[in-house]
C-alpha cells in the first residue's frame, strides 16, 4: 500500500516566511519556488500524504519554526 492517503498536509501561507527548512525535511513533498517559498508537490496549500510519505511530512511540520505546516486526518 503506497498510494493510500493517510493525512493532509496543510500550509498556512500567511504564517510561512520562506525559511525553507520544510524542503530539506521533506524533499519529496516540498520544493522551493524561485523566491524561496515552499511549493507543495501539487502546487496548492493542501497535499494528500500517503503512509510511506508520512515520516517526511511529520519532519516538515516539526522543522517549521513558524508553525505554518500541520497535518490533518
Amino acid at each position, binding site marked *: 500500500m503506497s498510494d493510500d492517503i493517510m493525512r493532509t498536509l496543510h500550509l498556512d*501561507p*500567511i504564517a*510561512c*516566511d*520562506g525559511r525553507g527548512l520544510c524542503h530539506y525535511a521533506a524533499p519529496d513533498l516540498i520544493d522551493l519556488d524561485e523566491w524561496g*517559498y515552499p*511549493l507543495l508537490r501539487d*502546487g*496548492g496549500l493542501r497535499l494528500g500524504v500517503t503512509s510511506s510519505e508520512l515520516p517526511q511530512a511529520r519532519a516538515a511540520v516539526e522543522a517549521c519554526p513558524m508553525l505554518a505546516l500541520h497535518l490533518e486526518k
Partner: protein
Amino acid sequence: MTERLGLGSPPSLADHLRTFGPMPHVDGRSGSSPGALVDEVESAGLRGRGGGWFPTHLKLRAVVDSSASRGRLSRTRQPIVIGNGMEGEPASSKDVVLLTSSPHLVLDGIEAAARTVGATEAFLAVHRGSPAIPVLERAIAERPDTELPITLDTPPARYVASEESALSHWIGDGIAQPVYPDRPFQKGADGRPTLVQNVETLAHLGLIARHGGAWFAEVGSPSAPGTTLVSIGGAVRHPGVLEAPTGTPVAHLIERAGGATSGIRGFLTGGYGGGWVASEGFAETSWDPDSMRAAGAVIGASILWAVGDQVCPLDELDRVVHWMAGESAGQCGPCVFGLPALSEDVHSLASRAVDPQRPTRLQRRLALVTGRGGCKHPDGVARLVGTGLSAFADEVAAHEDGRCTATANVGARLPVPPARVAALDGRGRDFR
C-alpha cells in the same frame, strides 16, 4: 427599463420615504432560526453583488448556525453585520453612486440583515477619504433611534481591504489585511460570526423586505434574478453607473452608455481582479454571473470597460498589473515577490523588449502565483494577466516581434492610482 435602487435621487430620509415607503417590521432571529426574511431572500434568489455572487440566504443561515452552535455564555456568540461599501476596484463607482443616492435603502438593508441574524453590532464600511462619508454621516444622524445603531467606519483605501476577511479583521483588530483561512461567517471580527455584505446587496435586501422575494425575481436571469448596478467605462460616450436587469446583453449596456466612441478591441470585465475578453461575439453575452463565466469573462463587481481600438491593450495590462502588484497585502511570499516578477515580465512585453525566454517564464510564474496565497489577490492578478495574453494574442505576437498595432495609443485609459511597492508587512503597518 427596470430601475429600482433610486440612482440619482436626493439622499434625504424624507425623499427616501417618499420614494420607497416605510420599512415594514422585520422579524428577529429566534434561537437557531433566522428571521423569516431569510425565506424571502431565498425565494428572491438574491446573490451577493460585491463580486462573488454567493447566494445571500446561505450566508445569513451560516452566520446564524455558527452563532447558535456556541455556548449560551460564549463571548463570541453574538453576530456582527458589516455593510461593505469599500469599492476597492478603481474602475467601479456603483457603490459610491448608490451610497450617495440611496443611503437609507442601504441602511434599511443593514438593519434588516442584523435583525434576521440576531446581530448585536452593525457597521457600514467605506474607504478612508470616500466622497460618500459626509452623506452617510448625515443619513445615519437623521434616522430615528433603533435598538441597533449603525457605526460608520473608514478602513484604509487599499485594494485587498475590500475583501471580507480583511474587513472583519479591520473591525475586530484594526488591521485591514485578509485572514487565512477565510471564513468570516464562522469566525470573523473578534472571533464572532460576521456577515459581510456588499452595500448593493443590502439595498436589494431593503427592497425585498418591502416587496417580497417573488417581486424581486420578476426581472433578471433566473439563475441570478433582480437588477444589478453596472460600472461602465472606456470607449463609450457616457461612462458611469447604470442599473439593468441581470441578463441584459452587453450590447444593450453599451447602448445605454451612449454607444461606443470608437471600434472596440476587447473588454475588461469584473474589474482588476476579473478578466479580459476579445470583443468578437461578446456583445450578445448576457450580463449575469453564469453567462459571463460561460463566455470566458467574469462579472465580478459588475464592471464593464471597453478598450478602444486605438489603445494598446498590453500597455493597459502593464499599468494595471504594476498597480495590483503593489496592492499585495504583504503577507504571503508568492504574492509579495511573485506579483512584481509577473509585472516586470508584462512590462517587458508591453515595451517590446527582446527576450526569447519571456513567454515560458511568464507561464511558469502565472502558475506559481496561483492558489498559493492566503487570499485570492494573486489568483486575480494571474487571471488578469492570463486572460489578457489570450484575449489579445495577436497583439502579444506583434509585441514579441517588436511591433505594436495601436500606434496612436489614444483613447480612454483605465484608471490607475499611484502604485506602491509590494513589501512584506507581517504587522500590517500599511493597513491600519
